[in-house]
């Protein structure tokens, strides 16, 4: 199995994701320059966080036209896994691979801090090692994490069990006061209908080492590996 980490101009969590896969999980991983289109020998593509194209115009708006994205549509069609973290999530939304959009954080400021998220759906390639309603401690760092989708879309997400993570408190209680950015229904991560594309705002790669005060992020990467290696 092999991971690919896409590097867009302005990505800045690409090396962090690469490090976790390679040095902590000891799995094969390669960087993929945004202009490359040969991605068929990969099993999971990571769209990392950062500020692709400076987030100019709108976060993710320009990156979604990168050549690699055309290949990613096929890749997704084939049922292979794509995970978009933070800016990667924003790109997936702009690209239409996930539904909804991101707007500015409710407090109009960049927010970098540890938050708690509750796993709402453990029946996915990305969360299969999590327990039902498990609470994960993972940091966020973004300007535009205020997830928005219209009422119909939200109902659709709920109906198909596409909401994977919600912001909550330490005990797992989901309420408005534990919503850091105003995201609708406390949503912090969703998957597509087919279940092979995940977008999430928190950074699992930043909570994958004991020294960084949480290893909860590893559960997501390990779930992916588990899913691929055991062909779940």
């Amino acid at each position, binding site marked *: 199995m092999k991971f690919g980490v896409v590097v867009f*101009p302005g990505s800045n*969590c690409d090396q962090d994701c690469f490090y976790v896969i390679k040095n902590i999980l000891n799995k094969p991983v390669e960087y993929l320059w945004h202009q490359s289109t040969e991605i068929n020998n990969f099993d999971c593509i990571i769209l990392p966080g950062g*500020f692709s194209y400076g*987030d100019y115009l709108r976060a993710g708006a320009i990156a979604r036209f990168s050549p690699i994205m055309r290949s990613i549509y096929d890749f997704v069609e084939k049922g292979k896994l794509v995970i978009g973290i933070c800016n990667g999530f924003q790109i997936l939304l702009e690209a239409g691979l996930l539904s909804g959009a991101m707007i500015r954080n409710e407090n109009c400021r*960049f*927010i970098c801090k540890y938050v708690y998220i509750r796993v709402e759906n453990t029946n996915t390639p990305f969360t299969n090692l999590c327990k039902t309603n498990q609470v994960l401690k993972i940091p966020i760092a973004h300007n535009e994490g205020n997830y928005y989708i219209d009422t119909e879309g939200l109902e659709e997400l709920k109906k198909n069990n596409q909401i994977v993570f919600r912001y909550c408190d330490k005990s797992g209680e989901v309420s408005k006061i534990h919503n850091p950015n105003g995201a609708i229904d406390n949503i912090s991560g969703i998957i597509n209908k087919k279940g092979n594309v995940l977008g999430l705002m928190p950074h699992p790669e*930043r909570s994958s080492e004991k020294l960084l005060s949480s290893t909860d992020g590893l559960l997501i990467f390990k779930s992916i590996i588990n899913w691929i290696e055991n062909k779940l």
Partner: protein
Amino acid sequence: MIKPHIYKSLGLATPQYKKILEILKREPTPTELAIFSVEWSEHCGYCSSKKLLKLLPKKGKAKTLIGEDAGGVVIDKNLAIVFKMESHNHPSQVEPHQGAATGVGGIIRDIFTCGARPIALLDSLRFGPINKAYNRYIFKGVVDGIQFYGNCVGVPTVGGEIYFEKCYSGNCLVNVMCIGVVDPEKVVRAKAEGVGNSLIYAGASTGRDGIGGCSVLASCEFKEKDEKRPTVQIGDPFMEKCLIEATLEALETGDIVGIKDMGAAGLTCSISEMVATGDVGAQIELERVPLRQKNLEPWEIMMSESQERMLMCVKEGKEKKIKKIFQKWGLNAEVIGKITNTKFIDIKYKNQTVAKIPAKSLVNAPLYNRKAEKPKYLKILRSLNLKKISKIKNYNKILLTLLGSENICSKKWVYEQYDHMVQTNTVILPGSDAAVLKLKGTNKAIAATTDCNSRYCFVNPYRGAQIAVAEAARNLVCSGAEPLAVTDCLNFGNPNNPTVFWEFKNCIKGIASACKYFNLAVVSGNVSFYNESPKGRVYPTPIIGMIGVIYDVGKATSHYFKKEDDVIILLGVCKNELGASEYLSKIYKVFSGDAPSLDLALEKAVQKTTLESISRSLVSSAHDCSEGGLAVALAECCIFDKENMIGAIIYGLDFNIREDALLFGETQSRIIISCPKNSVEHIRKIAQKNNAPFKVIGKTGGKNLIIYKKNKVLLDVSLEKLHNRWYNSLEEKII
């Protein structure tokens, strides 16, 4: 014929102009005049400060690397830390968002042009009183500029400090420190060598940004808020991020001989300094410089301070290869000249010579001997009759007031806007005594801090500067790091003022003496003069940035209490000292009194004891006592971790001094340690061995902070109350 008012308006004095005539043996062209004026300005030429800066030690306990743009220390066989701090005060006062943003960009370029990957930023900020709307506007703009640039460029902002003081109204201070990691064998110099090699310009196009900004912005005081409207430089962090990656990739080829960023004085400075350092000459074809706007005059191209640009000296024949790397990242890269053996910088524009100057003459600016005079007011300023301080006895209330002070309260409103975790090295997050970053591929970590109490420096420049060094070292030690080396950013008023120059001289002497005592090299630095407004000059503010090493990253220690029933130890002593304290300023509106005393031997003993105790894993937490004294320090230990606040009962403070001095005095060389019971005797022995005063003063536990003096309860406040005040205060004051 160049008339005096022309060269004078460019900031050149008549003797300097005569010197130029002497060097060129003819009249300068406009381009030459502009080049001399910026290279010989205070900002680039260090005319007033160079002689005194020689007092700072260049060697210390760690093996140092001292380059043109930044310096560093070797930490491991294949690993050196490069770091530097720089000011961007005046541009931030003019346009806070862009001023701070471009300040961040500039210092990052200084680091990666050494071949180092930038891994952290710290910001030392000073503003006028927070209750004035204009100061809040500047403060918010600066924070916004830092987050805008730092977050996008992907370098974590892990620490720093923020103070609000009247003297910074009308002249804020924005000092940014950047830290990078590099293989010591691969450090690149800002040097041009090898006749026939090419000079390649890379990065953003050149526009009319900050033309003359260097000398105009840096050597004029602000008379009127709106009088000066220089062309503000706009920062592009996205371009900078691409520039970092492209540069580091290009350096891997080994085909780059030297490299320098274009900061103050742009192309002028990078060409002349690279060429002079390499003792070569250069021929430049100015029309090859990528332009953003048409019709730029040759001198404008030379002076432009457009951001995100660099100059490289590339081996002959390798130009295409290097250009390709930059183009891959969507960046301009153009050959603009060649290295010659003439030792002249020969600049042509469309085949016409516009400047021809001996390279060395530009980097040897004429130096001034400034007059230094001790101000007469100091004697009165330092005297403080403690009997006249009416004794307000409600210590609970005083503690809450101090915890709510904008100079003490939690800065989470600020640091939560900074991405402080990207690159996944930040082991100790902002808010502790020092930031700790692990070094991937080793078991080591570094700790970094910035410090300066300018109130102390105002009343006692020499000791104030010594304290800044001592406190920075103390902060590092509290995180478990051994201090290794220093960078400084020296912010002062107009050096023509003998009082200012006396302050400057004494601060340098103070830094030098303390650094020598702790065996720390000053590896890089920056001087910012003319920090004045019509309201007056800023306090002398020599910011000390310090780096230390933690040999075992697992031993990194933070400042707050970890568990109940730990023993609380005070290393050091409490004295009857209240001068220049936050307590006097906030509670009595008194700003006088001498800075606290400093005994370097005692300081060393306390630090050694702490470091040894941490390295033997005896300690749960270690925290330095600074502004607000012991009571504030203890409160911070109790309430920092919101999810796990731990109270304390303090019963062992048997110092025979005033109650307020005991609680809020800012006596130096004190560290509060908490540790499990079975560590106490070990730590006591370590303290005895090092001659450090040791006292068990209490234990952790409960939901209150209670402080006794003998049998009397001086203070008893609930953690909830302390936390709310400390945690929410900044936000309440600025919204």
